[in-house]
């Protein structure tokens, strides 16, 4: 069990020191993602509070074989940030959050490996190097939580075009995971 996963098992046992440790390790990345999505410092800090509270309540359900602790926190951060963004923009929520407060279903989406630092860097570089149209579509989907239908409407492009761009962009990023 890696150090992070052991912190989460202590968290599940109600250890407040573990909450402090988990915060020290990951609050900076959680806050960065929330700020990127919300573009509002106060709202982003509220999300950090929500995420660590949720981690405290649901730590017992974390499964280290299903992904990294940071990945788990970031899924919660994205979901909560987008919920807030939609509420602020009074956008009806037509999305269905697959992974709102849990790891992917037990038999589903278990990666063979955990995301390494090196892979994270490669994904970042690959996103920057995507063709503009693909990057834009993927960013709207990931960081603004728009459905592809909403992206098509916003960019006044056919839905099929947007779907192709998102799929191609995701495919390109997947390729970069491999050494």
């Amino acid at each position, binding site marked *: 069990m890696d150090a992070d996963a052991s912190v989460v098992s202590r968290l599940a*046992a109600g250890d*407040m020191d573990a909450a402090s440790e988990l915060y020290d390790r990951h609050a900076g990345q959680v806050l960065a993602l929330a*700020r990127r999505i919300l573009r509002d410092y106060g709202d982003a*800090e509220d999300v950090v509070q929500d995420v660590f509270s949720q981690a405290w309540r649901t730590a017992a359900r974390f499964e280290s074989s299903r992904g990294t602790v940071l990945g788990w926190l970031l899924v919660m951060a994205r979901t909560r940030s987008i919920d807030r963004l939609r509420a602020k923009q009074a956008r009806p929520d037509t999305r269905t959050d697959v992974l709102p407060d849990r790891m992917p279903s037990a038999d589903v989406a278990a*990666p063979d490996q955990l*995301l390494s630092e090196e*892979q994270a860097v490669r994904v970042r570089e690959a996103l920057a190097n995507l063709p503009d149209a693909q990057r834009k579509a993927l960013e709207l989907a990931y960081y603004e939580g728009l*459905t592809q239908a909403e992206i098509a409407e916003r960019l006044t492009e056919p839905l099929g075009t947007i779907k192709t761009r998102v799929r191609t962009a995701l495919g390109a990023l997947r390729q970069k995971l491999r050494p």
Partner: protein
Amino acid sequence: MTMDRHDILGPKLGDYVLGDVTPEEIREIEGHVRDCAECAAELGELSLVMEGLARVPEPVAPPPELKRRVLESIAGLPKGGQTVDAVRRGWSTGWLAAAAAMILALGGALYLSQDRGRQISDELRRADSEIAELRTQLSDFTGQTDLALSILTASDMQRIELAGSASGARAYWSATQGLLVAADRLPVPPPGRIYQVWLIGGGAPVSAGVLATPRTGRGILIAPPPGGIARGPVTVAVTDEPPGGLAAPTGSKHFVGSI
């Protein structure tokens, strides 16, 4: 697995990880992925891509006070595995159930007191600013300033975070000097009601007095120690009661905290 389902559902894996699928599609995709190694592998990689996208923004240094806020909010929650609803239900079923919720919160409060030992310099800075803030609030209460300062500077003073509907409610309890309760962003009490503060120290709740609300949203009580409270752990609770207060609580609890 059939090829048809694979051909239909495979291209939707990206939609799935982005959350752009219907509940029915979720069920279909999850069902398919359990039987299809190819899609399971792709979904695993897409999950890593999602984590990679989440890590594109460079980590930032959170503002120093955020950690305290986060840990204090956790301290007021039940431990992992408990649901908040369970505690909420307890609140509405009376003092006994509320006491159970308080005990759950107690673990967190104890942690905060241990944490204080380790983070003494942080805490001193915070205490300074809290006292400065309280001094400002106390300008309206000059007659009670001495008592308030006696409480705040008492060697046996303990700070109690009050969880409830105001985001900034706190009590300072000294068994020798008395009780100071300060609340910020206090909701308006129900029509015809006022806030009354109670101390519970092993026996029945004892009234500590009525929360004065000199300005909308602010509440303060400065009182000498009421009789009947033994030294040792206490719980502070705030309820709404008829004007003038009662000898025993009857109204809804708005804040509660324990040491």
